[in-house]
């Protein structure tokens, strides 16, 4: 056995390839079931309908509150979506394999992309319903704010998702952490969609993305340790 090499010698796949493989698998699982991601959309729909009933028939009030309402529903829906990161993997005993095969930074990126996709579908569904039921408006700046704001939310949520899997008390902490961490996206995302001058709000979202991304990058590997 002298000079023998350990294991099958194959080249480690690149970051983008690994992210694509992981995202494709998670998307198939999410779209194929009725729990998890699919359960979030009826919740958002119910939230928009109930908000319409609570706010009354005044079209101006409905139109004004619609963007903020959608962002609030997205952030609330983010709590169950955090299970997509690690808790569902751990419950089904696939988390150890991912930790063994995928470097922490790539795992963070892949899971953040999955969450960004889930959050984007949630925001789009909420916005569509707000347009149909609350007479809300869709603006280019509002859409750009969603694209940008959800990056920071997804990065933060990936860290909270790993925390949820690592700590028995994580579930209780999660709701208390997600909403404050998403506050910049809630405020700037809402204002960018309605303000005459959206650029300062979009710049704030870029800054939020940078801070959330850098913090998640620094913290995530430590959350994988036992």
């Amino acid at each position, binding site marked *: *056995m002298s000079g023998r090499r*350990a294991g099958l010698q*194959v080249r480690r796949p690149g970051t983008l390839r690994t992210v694509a493989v992981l995202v494709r698998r998670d998307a198939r699982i999410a779209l194929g079931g009725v729990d998890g991601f699919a359960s979030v959309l009826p919740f958002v729909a119910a939230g928009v309908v109930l908000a319409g009933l609570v706010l009354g028939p005044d079209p101006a009030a409905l139109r004004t509150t619609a963007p903020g309402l959608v962002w609030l529903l997205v952030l609330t829906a983010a709590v169950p979506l955090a299970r997509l990161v690690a808790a569902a993997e751990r419950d089904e005993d696939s988390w150890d*394999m991912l930790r063994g095969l995928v470097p922490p930074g790539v795992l963070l990126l892949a899971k953040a992309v999955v969450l960004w996709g889930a959050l984007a579908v949630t925001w789009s569904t909420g916005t569509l319903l707000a347009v149909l039921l609350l007479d809300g408006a869709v603006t280019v700046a509002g859409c750009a704010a969603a694209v940008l704001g959800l990056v920071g939310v997804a990065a933060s949520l990936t860290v909270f998702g790993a925390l949820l899997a690592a700590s028995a008390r994580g579930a209780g902490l999660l709701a208390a952490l997600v909403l404050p961490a998403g506050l910049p996206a809630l405020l700037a995302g809402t204002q960018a969609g309605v303000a005459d001058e959206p650029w300062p709000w979009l710049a704030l979202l870029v800054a939020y993305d940078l801070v959330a991304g850098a913090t998640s990058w620094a913290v995530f590997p430590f959350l994988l340790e036992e």
Partner: protein
Amino acid sequence: MTESSPGGAEPPALSLHEVACRYGSRTVLAPLTLRLAPGAVCAVGGANGAGKTTLLRIAAGLVEPTSGSRSVSGRALYLRPGAGMRRRQRAVEAVAFAGALAGRPEPAVSAAAALASCGLPEELWRQETGRLSAGQQTRVTLAVARVVSPAVVCLDEPMEHLDAEGRAAVRATVAALAGRGTAVLVAGPEAAHHLGPADARLELAAGAVTVLG
């Protein structure tokens, strides 16, 4: 300190140097030194709570030892029976997914070959793994280990849920992995008995090695 060095002077696939693990004041694993050469097989026995899983998870890099150091010459994989797949994945997709993450050039082809080698009937390959029996899920786990073939594989209680034919599949998988140069740690209360000849044998009791062979 207990030391085992199957493989002699070869560069090790796995090297644990005085690794120990404590949770608070409780010692889960006493200091242990272990070097496994590429292709070496080590059976880890002991009763429940003896520290087998902790040793394997340290070897795979999932648990940080309280003291001591660990080095691996590549990737390490820790697998329990039924692990390594999502319940909604089809068996062949789960194995191909692991192969793709490991960088196998044709993961679907490798997955089919691995599942066939592990004795999972072909009509079950497109079944969701959550609908398979525990023994069938273990065969999918073995196929994952085969298709990835990393530097080190840690199989925790792989004989669980398996009939005689399934245990033969475990032995064949361990032999195939060792033949490709993968160092294999196999844990179970009677791992050495079920596994047959191994390059090293550890028996743990209350976190310490009691038998070394």
